[in-house]
Protein backbone atom coordinates (compact mmCIF):
# COMPACT_ATOMS: atom_id res chain seq x y z
CA UNK A 1 0.00 0.00 0.00
CA UNK A 2 1.37 3.43 -0.91
CA UNK A 3 2.19 5.82 1.87
CA UNK A 4 0.83 9.30 2.29
CA UNK A 5 0.67 11.36 -0.88
CA UNK A 6 1.82 14.45 0.98
CA UNK A 7 5.32 14.47 -0.42
CA UNK A 8 7.24 17.48 -1.51
CA UNK A 9 7.67 16.76 -5.14
CA UNK A 10 8.44 18.19 -8.48
CA UNK A 11 6.05 16.77 -10.94
CA UNK A 12 6.87 16.44 -14.55
CA UNK A 13 4.28 15.12 -16.87
CA UNK A 14 4.75 13.94 -20.39
CA UNK A 15 1.11 14.59 -21.17
CA UNK A 16 -2.13 13.09 -20.11
CA UNK A 17 -1.71 9.99 -22.25
CA UNK A 18 1.47 8.74 -20.64
CA UNK A 19 2.14 7.75 -17.02
CA UNK A 20 3.17 10.53 -14.67
CA UNK A 21 6.82 10.66 -13.84
CA UNK A 22 8.05 12.66 -10.98
CA UNK A 23 11.14 13.28 -8.96
CA UNK A 24 10.80 13.52 -5.22
CA UNK A 25 12.93 16.23 -3.63
CA UNK A 26 13.40 15.43 0.02
CA UNK A 27 14.83 17.29 2.99
CA UNK A 28 17.97 15.76 4.54
CA UNK A 29 18.23 13.10 5.75
CA UNK A 30 16.04 11.39 3.17
CA UNK A 31 13.65 8.80 4.57
CA UNK A 32 13.78 5.20 3.35
CA UNK A 33 11.62 4.53 0.29
CA UNK A 34 9.24 2.24 2.11
CA UNK A 35 9.07 4.31 5.30
CA UNK A 36 5.88 6.34 5.58
CA UNK A 37 6.51 10.06 5.93
CA UNK A 38 5.82 11.51 9.34
CA UNK A 39 2.29 12.74 9.63
CA UNK A 40 1.64 16.33 10.58
CA UNK A 41 -1.84 17.50 11.64
CA UNK A 42 -3.96 18.47 8.70
CA UNK A 43 -4.65 21.99 9.86
CA UNK A 44 -1.06 23.02 10.52
CA UNK A 45 0.74 25.30 8.13
CA UNK A 46 3.29 23.34 6.13
CA UNK A 47 6.87 24.55 5.86
CA UNK A 48 7.05 23.08 2.36
CA UNK A 49 4.52 23.67 -0.36
CA UNK A 50 2.02 20.89 -0.61
CA UNK A 51 0.95 19.44 -3.90
CA UNK A 52 -2.75 18.90 -4.47
CA UNK A 53 -3.71 15.28 -4.81
CA UNK A 54 -5.10 15.93 -8.29
CA UNK A 55 -1.68 17.27 -9.33
CA UNK A 56 0.16 14.36 -7.80
CA UNK A 57 -2.09 11.96 -9.64
CA UNK A 58 -3.18 13.87 -12.74
CA UNK A 59 -3.62 10.78 -14.88
CA UNK A 60 -6.33 8.52 -13.43
CA UNK A 61 -5.30 5.61 -15.64
CA UNK A 62 -1.89 5.62 -13.98
CA UNK A 63 -3.21 4.93 -10.50
CA UNK A 64 -5.22 2.13 -8.95
CA UNK A 65 -8.91 1.97 -9.90
CA UNK A 66 -9.94 2.29 -6.25
CA UNK A 67 -7.84 5.40 -5.77
CA UNK A 68 -9.12 6.94 -8.99
CA UNK A 69 -12.71 6.25 -7.99
CA UNK A 70 -12.15 7.52 -4.46
CA UNK A 71 -10.58 10.75 -5.65
CA UNK A 72 -13.39 11.34 -8.08
CA UNK A 73 -16.02 10.73 -5.41
CA UNK A 74 -14.17 12.83 -2.86
CA UNK A 75 -14.02 15.70 -5.31
CA UNK A 76 -17.79 15.58 -5.65
CA UNK A 77 -18.23 15.15 -1.91
CA UNK A 78 -16.06 18.16 -1.23
CA UNK A 79 -18.12 20.32 -3.58
CA UNK A 80 -21.34 19.20 -1.91
CA UNK A 81 -20.23 19.73 1.67
CA UNK A 82 -18.63 23.08 0.94
CA UNK A 83 -21.84 24.18 -0.78
CA UNK A 84 -23.85 22.96 2.20
CA UNK A 85 -21.67 24.94 4.56
CA UNK A 86 -22.05 28.15 2.57
CA UNK A 87 -25.81 27.71 2.25
CA UNK A 88 -26.29 27.05 5.95
CA UNK A 89 -24.12 29.98 6.89
CA UNK A 90 -26.37 32.06 4.64
CA UNK A 91 -29.46 30.79 6.43
CA UNK A 92 -30.64 28.43 3.68
CA UNK A 93 -31.38 25.24 5.63
CA UNK A 94 -33.27 23.57 2.81
CA UNK A 95 -30.49 24.25 0.34
CA UNK A 96 -27.86 22.93 2.75
CA UNK A 97 -29.84 19.76 3.36
CA UNK A 98 -30.27 19.21 -0.36
CA UNK A 99 -26.50 19.30 -0.74
CA UNK A 100 -25.86 16.91 2.17
CA UNK A 101 -28.46 14.59 0.72
CA UNK A 102 -26.37 14.37 -2.44
CA UNK A 103 -23.29 13.82 -0.31
CA UNK A 104 -25.04 10.96 1.48
CA UNK A 105 -25.76 9.33 -1.85
CA UNK A 106 -22.02 9.23 -2.63
CA UNK A 107 -21.00 7.58 0.61
CA UNK A 108 -21.82 3.92 -0.14
CA UNK A 109 -19.60 4.06 -3.21
CA UNK A 110 -16.89 5.78 -1.21
CA UNK A 111 -17.19 2.96 1.32
CA UNK A 112 -16.70 0.52 -1.53
CA UNK A 113 -13.19 1.97 -2.02
CA UNK A 114 -12.16 0.93 1.47
CA UNK A 115 -9.40 -1.36 0.22
CA UNK A 116 -7.24 1.76 0.03
CA UNK A 117 -6.48 1.24 3.69
CA UNK A 118 -7.86 0.91 7.19
CA UNK A 119 -7.69 4.65 7.77
CA UNK A 120 -9.67 5.39 4.64
CA UNK A 121 -12.12 2.60 5.40
CA UNK A 122 -12.61 3.83 8.96
CA UNK A 123 -13.44 7.36 7.89
CA UNK A 124 -15.63 6.28 4.96
CA UNK A 125 -17.55 4.04 7.33
CA UNK A 126 -17.78 6.78 9.93
CA UNK A 127 -19.20 9.23 7.40
CA UNK A 128 -21.68 6.69 6.06
CA UNK A 129 -22.87 5.73 9.54
CA UNK A 130 -23.07 9.22 10.98
CA UNK A 131 -25.19 10.63 8.18
CA UNK A 132 -27.35 7.50 7.93
CA UNK A 133 -27.95 7.61 11.68
CA UNK A 134 -29.47 11.07 11.38
CA UNK A 135 -32.44 9.32 9.72
CA UNK A 136 -33.11 12.28 7.48
CA UNK A 137 -32.52 15.02 10.04
CA UNK A 138 -30.37 17.92 8.77
CA UNK A 139 -26.79 18.44 9.88
CA UNK A 140 -26.09 21.53 11.94
CA UNK A 141 -23.18 23.80 11.15
CA UNK A 142 -20.70 22.16 13.52
CA UNK A 143 -21.59 18.77 12.10
CA UNK A 144 -21.15 20.03 8.54
CA UNK A 145 -17.75 21.40 9.50
CA UNK A 146 -16.71 18.11 11.08
CA UNK A 147 -17.81 16.18 8.00
CA UNK A 148 -16.03 18.68 5.75
CA UNK A 149 -12.78 18.22 7.66
CA UNK A 150 -12.95 14.47 7.16
CA UNK A 151 -13.73 14.79 3.45
CA UNK A 152 -10.86 17.21 2.94
CA UNK A 153 -8.49 14.99 4.91
CA UNK A 154 -9.34 12.01 2.73
CA UNK A 155 -8.84 14.08 -0.41
CA UNK A 156 -5.41 15.17 0.78
CA UNK A 157 -4.43 11.89 2.40
CA UNK A 158 -6.37 8.94 1.00
CA UNK A 159 -3.79 6.67 2.67
CA UNK A 160 -4.31 8.22 6.08
CA UNK A 161 -3.27 6.01 8.97
CA UNK A 162 -5.79 4.23 11.14
CA UNK A 163 -4.64 6.15 14.22
CA UNK A 164 -5.15 9.53 12.59
CA UNK A 165 -8.50 8.36 11.26
CA UNK A 166 -9.57 7.44 14.80
CA UNK A 167 -8.79 10.99 15.94
CA UNK A 168 -11.12 12.31 13.26
CA UNK A 169 -13.80 9.82 14.23
CA UNK A 170 -13.57 11.38 17.70
CA UNK A 171 -14.13 14.80 16.16
CA UNK A 172 -17.27 13.57 14.36
CA UNK A 173 -18.53 12.29 17.71
CA UNK A 174 -17.69 15.56 19.41
CA UNK A 175 -20.00 17.26 16.90
CA UNK A 176 -22.82 15.04 18.16
CA UNK A 177 -22.74 12.50 15.33
CA UNK A 178 -23.13 8.75 15.88
CA UNK A 179 -20.41 6.97 13.98
CA UNK A 180 -21.32 3.34 14.63
CA UNK A 181 -23.83 1.31 12.61
CA UNK A 182 -27.39 1.29 13.92
CA UNK A 183 -27.82 -1.54 16.38
CA UNK A 184 -24.30 -1.14 17.79
CA UNK A 185 -25.65 -0.38 21.26
CA UNK A 186 -27.57 -3.67 21.35
CA UNK A 187 -24.54 -5.56 20.09
CA UNK A 188 -22.28 -4.13 22.79
CA UNK A 189 -24.88 -4.85 25.45
CA UNK A 190 -24.93 -8.47 24.30
CA UNK A 191 -21.13 -8.77 24.22
CA UNK A 192 -20.93 -7.10 27.61
CA UNK A 193 -23.24 -9.76 28.97
CA UNK A 194 -22.49 -12.51 31.33
CA UNK A 195 -22.40 -16.23 30.82
CA UNK A 196 -25.40 -17.83 32.50
CA UNK A 197 -24.77 -18.43 36.24
Amino acid at each position, binding site marked *: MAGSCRARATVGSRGTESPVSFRIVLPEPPPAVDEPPEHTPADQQQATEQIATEDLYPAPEAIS*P*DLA*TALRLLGKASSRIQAAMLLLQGGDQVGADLETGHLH*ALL*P*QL*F*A*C*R*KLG*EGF*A*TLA*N*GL*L*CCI*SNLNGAPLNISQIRAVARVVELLRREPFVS*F*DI*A*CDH*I*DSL*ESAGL*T*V*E*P*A*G*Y*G*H*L*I*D*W*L*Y*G*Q*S*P*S
Partner: protein
Amino acid sequence: MVKALVETTVLTDALLERREVRAAVKAALRRYDETELPAYAIKEFKAGPLRNVVWFYNKLVATGSYAMALHALQRMSLTPRRYTTATALEALKVAAVEFGRMTVGEFTTQNQPDITIDAALCESYRLAIKVNIRRAWRDRRTLTSRIIHELPCYQELAPVQQESGLFEVKPIDCAGGECEMARVLKQDPSVLDRLRAAVDAQPQTRENQRRSQALRFLKRTPKRELPTNLCRALGDAVFAVLCSPETTILTTNMRDIAPLAAALGKRAERPYSE
Protein backbone atom coordinates in the same frame (compact mmCIF):
# COMPACT_ATOMS: atom_id res chain seq x y z
CA MET B 1 -14.32 16.15 49.54
CA VAL B 2 -16.66 13.77 47.70
CA LYS B 3 -14.85 10.71 46.40
CA ALA B 4 -15.84 7.77 44.25
CA LEU B 5 -14.31 4.45 43.27
CA VAL B 6 -15.15 3.24 39.78
CA GLU B 7 -16.04 -0.42 39.40
CA THR B 8 -15.71 -2.49 36.20
CA THR B 9 -19.28 -2.04 34.95
CA VAL B 10 -18.93 1.75 34.95
CA LEU B 11 -15.48 1.51 33.36
CA THR B 12 -16.95 -0.65 30.60
CA ASP B 13 -19.78 1.79 29.96
CA ALA B 14 -17.24 4.62 29.76
CA LEU B 15 -15.05 2.80 27.26
CA LEU B 16 -17.19 0.62 25.01
CA GLU B 17 -20.75 1.87 25.05
CA ARG B 18 -22.31 4.14 22.45
CA ARG B 19 -21.62 7.87 22.58
CA GLU B 20 -24.59 8.92 24.74
CA VAL B 21 -23.77 6.41 27.49
CA ARG B 22 -20.08 7.34 27.49
CA ALA B 23 -21.04 10.98 27.87
CA ALA B 24 -23.40 10.12 30.74
CA VAL B 25 -20.61 8.27 32.56
CA LYS B 26 -18.20 11.17 32.22
CA ALA B 27 -20.87 13.61 33.40
CA ALA B 28 -21.50 11.40 36.43
CA LEU B 29 -17.81 11.23 37.31
CA ARG B 30 -17.52 15.00 37.17
CA ARG B 31 -19.89 15.24 40.15
CA TYR B 32 -17.10 13.94 42.38
CA ASP B 33 -14.08 15.85 43.62
CA GLU B 34 -11.89 12.82 43.24
CA THR B 35 -12.37 9.51 41.42
CA GLU B 36 -10.31 6.35 41.70
CA LEU B 37 -9.96 3.32 39.48
CA PRO B 38 -8.33 0.14 40.82
CA ALA B 39 -6.01 -1.47 38.29
CA TYR B 40 -7.98 -4.67 38.99
CA ALA B 41 -10.96 -3.10 37.14
CA ILE B 42 -8.82 -2.76 34.01
CA LYS B 43 -7.80 -6.42 34.35
CA GLU B 44 -11.44 -7.47 34.71
CA PHE B 45 -12.45 -5.23 31.80
CA LYS B 46 -9.84 -6.77 29.51
CA ALA B 47 -10.68 -10.35 30.51
CA GLY B 48 -14.43 -9.79 30.19
CA PRO B 49 -16.17 -7.20 28.00
CA LEU B 50 -13.13 -6.23 25.92
CA ARG B 51 -12.27 -9.84 25.20
CA ASN B 52 -15.87 -10.52 24.14
CA VAL B 53 -15.80 -7.53 21.78
CA VAL B 54 -12.50 -8.74 20.33
CA TRP B 55 -14.04 -12.19 19.91
CA PHE B 56 -16.88 -10.75 17.83
CA TYR B 57 -14.43 -8.65 15.82
CA ASN B 58 -12.41 -11.73 15.01
CA LYS B 59 -15.59 -13.53 13.97
CA LEU B 60 -16.40 -10.75 11.53
CA VAL B 61 -12.89 -10.98 10.09
CA ALA B 62 -12.91 -14.76 9.89
CA THR B 63 -16.37 -15.13 8.35
CA GLY B 64 -16.61 -11.93 6.32
CA SER B 65 -20.32 -12.12 7.08
CA TYR B 66 -22.40 -10.18 9.58
CA ALA B 67 -25.09 -12.87 9.55
CA MET B 68 -22.57 -15.63 10.36
CA ALA B 69 -20.95 -13.64 13.12
CA LEU B 70 -24.36 -12.95 14.65
CA HIS B 71 -25.22 -16.62 14.37
CA ALA B 72 -22.00 -17.45 16.22
CA LEU B 73 -22.93 -14.95 18.93
CA GLN B 74 -26.31 -16.63 19.39
CA ARG B 75 -24.51 -19.92 19.99
CA MET B 76 -22.32 -18.47 22.72
CA SER B 77 -23.59 -18.60 26.27
CA LEU B 78 -23.74 -14.83 26.67
CA THR B 79 -26.83 -13.06 27.90
CA PRO B 80 -27.33 -9.37 27.11
CA ARG B 81 -27.03 -7.18 30.16
CA ARG B 82 -30.05 -4.92 29.77
CA TYR B 83 -32.21 -6.64 27.17
CA THR B 84 -33.45 -10.13 26.55
CA THR B 85 -31.65 -12.11 23.86
CA ALA B 86 -34.78 -11.97 21.71
CA THR B 87 -34.97 -8.18 22.01
CA ALA B 88 -31.31 -7.75 21.16
CA LEU B 89 -31.59 -10.07 18.18
CA GLU B 90 -34.68 -8.29 16.89
CA ALA B 91 -32.99 -4.89 17.24
CA LEU B 92 -29.93 -6.11 15.39
CA LYS B 93 -32.04 -7.54 12.58
CA VAL B 94 -34.00 -4.29 12.28
CA ALA B 95 -30.74 -2.36 12.10
CA ALA B 96 -29.48 -4.71 9.41
CA VAL B 97 -32.67 -4.20 7.41
CA GLU B 98 -32.20 -0.43 7.70
CA PHE B 99 -28.66 -0.77 6.42
CA GLY B 100 -29.96 -2.98 3.67
CA ARG B 101 -32.28 -0.21 2.48
CA MET B 102 -29.18 1.02 0.75
CA THR B 103 -29.26 -1.27 -2.24
CA VAL B 104 -26.39 -3.48 -3.25
CA GLY B 105 -26.06 -1.32 -6.33
CA GLU B 106 -25.20 1.71 -4.23
CA PHE B 107 -22.19 -0.13 -2.84
CA THR B 108 -20.87 -1.42 -6.10
CA THR B 109 -18.26 0.23 -8.17
CA GLN B 110 -16.54 -0.85 -11.33
CA ASN B 111 -13.72 -2.06 -9.12
CA GLN B 112 -15.92 -3.90 -6.68
CA PRO B 113 -18.93 -5.24 -8.56
CA ASP B 114 -19.76 -8.23 -6.36
CA ILE B 115 -20.25 -6.97 -2.85
CA THR B 116 -23.23 -8.18 -0.85
CA ILE B 117 -25.14 -6.22 1.76
CA ASP B 118 -24.08 -8.81 4.35
CA ALA B 119 -20.41 -8.24 3.54
CA ALA B 120 -20.84 -4.47 3.60
CA LEU B 121 -22.57 -4.67 6.97
CA CYS B 122 -19.81 -6.97 8.23
CA GLU B 123 -17.19 -4.42 7.26
CA SER B 124 -19.14 -1.53 8.77
CA TYR B 125 -19.35 -3.26 12.15
CA ARG B 126 -15.76 -4.46 11.95
CA LEU B 127 -14.43 -0.95 11.41
CA ALA B 128 -16.60 0.58 14.13
CA ILE B 129 -15.54 -2.09 16.62
CA LYS B 130 -11.88 -1.64 15.75
CA VAL B 131 -12.14 2.08 16.45
CA ASN B 132 -13.77 1.35 19.80
CA ILE B 133 -11.16 -1.25 20.78
CA ARG B 134 -8.45 1.32 20.14
CA ARG B 135 -10.32 4.08 21.97
CA ALA B 136 -11.12 1.86 24.93
CA TRP B 137 -7.51 0.88 25.47
CA ARG B 138 -6.23 4.41 24.89
CA ASP B 139 -8.65 5.94 27.42
CA ARG B 140 -8.70 3.23 30.10
CA ARG B 141 -6.42 5.12 32.48
CA THR B 142 -7.68 8.63 31.73
CA LEU B 143 -11.20 8.50 33.12
CA THR B 144 -10.48 8.98 36.81
CA SER B 145 -8.37 11.29 38.94
CA ARG B 146 -6.01 8.43 39.67
CA ILE B 147 -5.36 4.72 39.36
CA ILE B 148 -5.03 2.90 42.68
CA HIS B 149 -3.62 -0.47 43.72
CA GLU B 150 -1.48 -1.23 40.71
CA LEU B 151 -0.94 -4.92 40.03
CA PRO B 152 2.73 -5.91 39.94
CA CYS B 153 1.55 -9.48 39.31
CA TYR B 154 -0.23 -8.59 36.04
CA GLN B 155 1.04 -7.36 32.65
CA GLU B 156 -1.38 -4.80 31.27
CA LEU B 157 -0.67 -5.26 27.57
CA ALA B 158 -2.72 -3.77 24.74
CA PRO B 159 -4.71 -5.96 22.35
CA VAL B 160 -2.55 -6.59 19.30
CA GLN B 161 -3.72 -7.09 15.73
CA GLN B 162 -1.89 -9.94 14.02
CA GLU B 163 -1.02 -10.16 10.33
CA SER B 164 -4.10 -12.31 9.88
CA GLY B 165 -6.21 -9.32 10.90
CA LEU B 166 -7.31 -11.05 14.07
CA PHE B 167 -6.75 -9.45 17.44
CA GLU B 168 -4.88 -11.16 20.24
CA VAL B 169 -6.05 -10.06 23.69
CA LYS B 170 -3.56 -11.52 26.12
CA PRO B 171 -2.65 -11.87 28.88
CA ILE B 172 -5.90 -11.94 30.84
CA ASP B 173 -4.44 -13.67 33.91
CA CYS B 174 -1.67 -12.75 36.27
CA ALA B 175 1.91 -13.61 35.41
CA GLY B 176 2.42 -15.64 38.54
CA GLY B 177 4.03 -15.07 41.87
CA GLU B 178 2.10 -13.57 44.74
CA CYS B 179 -1.31 -12.23 43.76
CA GLU B 180 -1.51 -8.58 44.77
CA MET B 181 -5.24 -8.70 45.46
CA ALA B 182 -4.79 -11.79 47.62
CA ARG B 183 -2.13 -9.96 49.59
CA VAL B 184 -4.46 -7.00 50.19
CA LEU B 185 -7.48 -9.10 51.12
CA LYS B 186 -5.53 -11.28 53.54
CA GLN B 187 -4.48 -8.28 55.63
CA ASP B 188 -7.63 -8.51 57.78
CA PRO B 189 -9.13 -12.01 58.18
CA SER B 190 -12.31 -10.58 59.74
CA VAL B 191 -12.98 -8.79 56.46
CA LEU B 192 -12.82 -12.12 54.66
CA ASP B 193 -15.37 -13.55 57.10
CA ARG B 194 -17.79 -10.68 56.62
CA LEU B 195 -17.46 -10.76 52.86
CA ARG B 196 -17.98 -14.50 52.71
CA ALA B 197 -21.07 -14.24 54.91
CA ALA B 198 -22.46 -11.57 52.57
CA VAL B 199 -21.71 -13.68 49.48
CA ASP B 200 -23.25 -16.82 51.01
CA ALA B 201 -26.41 -14.86 51.83
CA GLN B 202 -26.89 -14.07 48.12
CA PRO B 203 -28.49 -16.37 45.54
CA GLN B 204 -26.09 -19.23 44.95
CA THR B 205 -25.16 -18.50 41.40
CA ARG B 206 -22.01 -20.05 39.96
CA GLU B 207 -20.31 -16.67 40.28
CA ASN B 208 -21.16 -16.37 43.98
CA GLN B 209 -20.10 -19.95 44.66
CA ARG B 210 -16.71 -19.30 43.09
CA ARG B 211 -16.37 -16.05 45.04
CA SER B 212 -17.12 -17.82 48.29
CA GLN B 213 -14.57 -20.50 47.41
CA ALA B 214 -11.89 -17.87 46.74
CA LEU B 215 -12.57 -16.09 50.03
CA ARG B 216 -12.48 -19.39 51.92
CA PHE B 217 -9.16 -20.24 50.28
CA LEU B 218 -7.65 -16.94 51.41
CA LYS B 219 -8.89 -17.39 54.97
CA ARG B 220 -7.90 -21.02 55.42
CA THR B 221 -4.63 -21.14 53.49
CA PRO B 222 -3.11 -17.66 53.81
CA LYS B 223 0.36 -18.89 53.03
CA ARG B 224 -0.59 -20.57 49.74
CA GLU B 225 -0.57 -18.72 46.45
CA LEU B 226 -4.01 -17.90 45.14
CA PRO B 227 -4.63 -19.70 41.80
CA THR B 228 -5.33 -17.33 38.92
CA ASN B 229 -8.87 -18.63 38.40
CA LEU B 230 -9.70 -17.83 42.04
CA CYS B 231 -8.19 -14.36 41.65
CA ARG B 232 -10.68 -13.76 38.85
CA ALA B 233 -13.44 -15.17 41.04
CA LEU B 234 -12.80 -12.56 43.73
CA GLY B 235 -14.37 -9.99 41.39
CA ASP B 236 -16.82 -7.74 43.21
CA ALA B 237 -15.30 -8.48 46.61
CA VAL B 238 -12.14 -6.64 45.57
CA PHE B 239 -13.97 -3.35 45.10
CA ALA B 240 -15.68 -3.61 48.46
CA VAL B 241 -12.27 -4.04 50.11
CA LEU B 242 -10.32 -1.45 48.10
CA CYS B 243 -12.91 1.25 48.64
CA SER B 244 -12.02 3.49 51.58
CA PRO B 245 -14.76 4.28 54.13
CA GLU B 246 -15.35 7.82 52.86
CA THR B 247 -15.54 6.74 49.20
CA THR B 248 -18.61 5.56 47.27
CA ILE B 249 -18.38 2.62 44.87
CA LEU B 250 -19.90 3.54 41.51
CA THR B 251 -21.42 0.51 39.80
CA THR B 252 -24.33 -0.52 37.60
CA ASN B 253 -24.25 -3.94 39.29
CA MET B 254 -25.92 -2.94 42.54
CA ARG B 255 -27.38 -6.41 43.01
CA ASP B 256 -23.94 -7.93 43.68
CA ILE B 257 -21.86 -4.98 44.86
CA ALA B 258 -24.24 -3.34 47.35
CA PRO B 259 -24.41 -6.29 49.80
CA LEU B 260 -20.64 -6.66 49.79
CA ALA B 261 -20.12 -2.94 50.38
CA ALA B 262 -22.72 -2.95 53.16
CA ALA B 263 -20.98 -5.90 54.84
CA LEU B 264 -17.92 -3.68 55.27
CA GLY B 265 -19.85 -0.54 56.20
CA LYS B 266 -19.31 1.08 52.82
CA ARG B 267 -21.60 2.64 50.20
CA ALA B 268 -22.36 1.78 46.62
CA GLU B 269 -24.50 3.70 44.17
CA ARG B 270 -25.60 3.62 40.56
CA PRO B 271 -24.19 6.81 39.01
CA TYR B 272 -26.67 7.18 36.12
CA SER B 273 -29.87 5.65 34.87
CA GLU B 274 -29.62 3.14 32.01
